[in-house]
């Protein structure tokens, strides 16, 4: 006869109780008037106030731009620490060797990935996407290059120093866009609330400073994740 493990039964009961508790709390919060007030405001007045059709990007880069700065800072810190901690040996490629079929098809795919990332970044305030997703696709391109053609091929064109330079330029550009809000007479990273012209909603050049901050965040996130992966892929 098999003995019942009481620890596992106890933890199962505990996890079930926790799940029930969280479900109850979420259901009761969803009905509250105070919790829905800001969401209703964003949905009703978001397009008029910011000039961006995609309300999610309007929240990420206009109302709550400071949160985006925090996210970008997390990736910046992670990239710096990984590049600092890992050993400095410039060394060999990854072990896997692919056939020419894989290399040719990856070479065929890469330009389309570049186009879709630029599309996501520049149309971030009009359609789903934005600087963060576009930047992650750029770093996925560099991961594909490293996996397929090897570490050497990548570092011959973009070494860690160059990528870090682009990352720093992106971070500084985002902070400078934030300072524009103070210069216009508002708070840090304020956009259309301080009178920066939002433009006609639906056009490519609209949403105040939102396209610029999209490009800054994309440069930062894309090169930051690429630096992390380049540092990890280094072999000794």
């Amino acid at each position: 006869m098999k003995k019942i493990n009481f620890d596992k039964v106890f933890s199962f009961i505990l996890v079930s109780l926790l799940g029930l508790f969280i479900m109850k709390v979420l259901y009761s919060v969803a009905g509250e008037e105070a919790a829905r007030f800001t969401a209703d405001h964003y949905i009703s007045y978001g397009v008029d106030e910011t000039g961006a059709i995609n309300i999610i990007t309007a929240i990420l880069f206009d109302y709550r731009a400071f949160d985006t700065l925090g996210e970008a800072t997390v990736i910046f810190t992670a990239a710096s620490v990984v590049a600092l901690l890992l050993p400095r040996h410039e060394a060999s490629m990854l072990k896997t060797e692919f056939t020419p079929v894989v290399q040719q098809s990856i070479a065929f795919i890469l330009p389309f990935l570049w186009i879709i990332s630029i599309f996501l970044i520049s149309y971030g305030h009009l359609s789903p996407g934005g600087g963060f997703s576009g930047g992650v696709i750029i770093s996925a391109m560099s991961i594909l290059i490293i996996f397929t053609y090897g570490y050497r091929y990548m570092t011959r064109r973009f070494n860690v120093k160059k990528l870090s330079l682009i990352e720093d330029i992106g971070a500084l550009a985002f902070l400078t866009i934030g300072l524009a809000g103070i210069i216009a007479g508002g708070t840090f990273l304020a956009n259309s609330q301080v009178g920066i012209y939002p433009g006609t909603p639906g056009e490519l050049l609209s949403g105040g400073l939102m396209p610029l901050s999209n490009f800054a965040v994309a440069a930062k996130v894309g090169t930051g994740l690429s630096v992390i992966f380049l540092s990890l892929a280094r072999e000794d």
Partner: protein
Amino acid sequence: MIEIILMLLILLLVVSAAIALFSKKLLNSIITLSIFSALLVIILIIFQAPDLALAEAVIAAGITTSFFIITINKTEGVN
């Protein structure tokens, strides 16, 4: 109809999460985790959140999987 598909997807989500949690090999866990995120992308599209679905597809299926694989490749001999 969409209700049945949604329930099926959520059930598969739980199953794939359990497999990722309890499988002995780490590589199997990573592949199951990327299946988990692919299922989550479909569920988010059904809930009409394309922004989140895009971020989930790119980050979880692309970046996280390759980061985990390269980390396991690095620490293979340590155990």
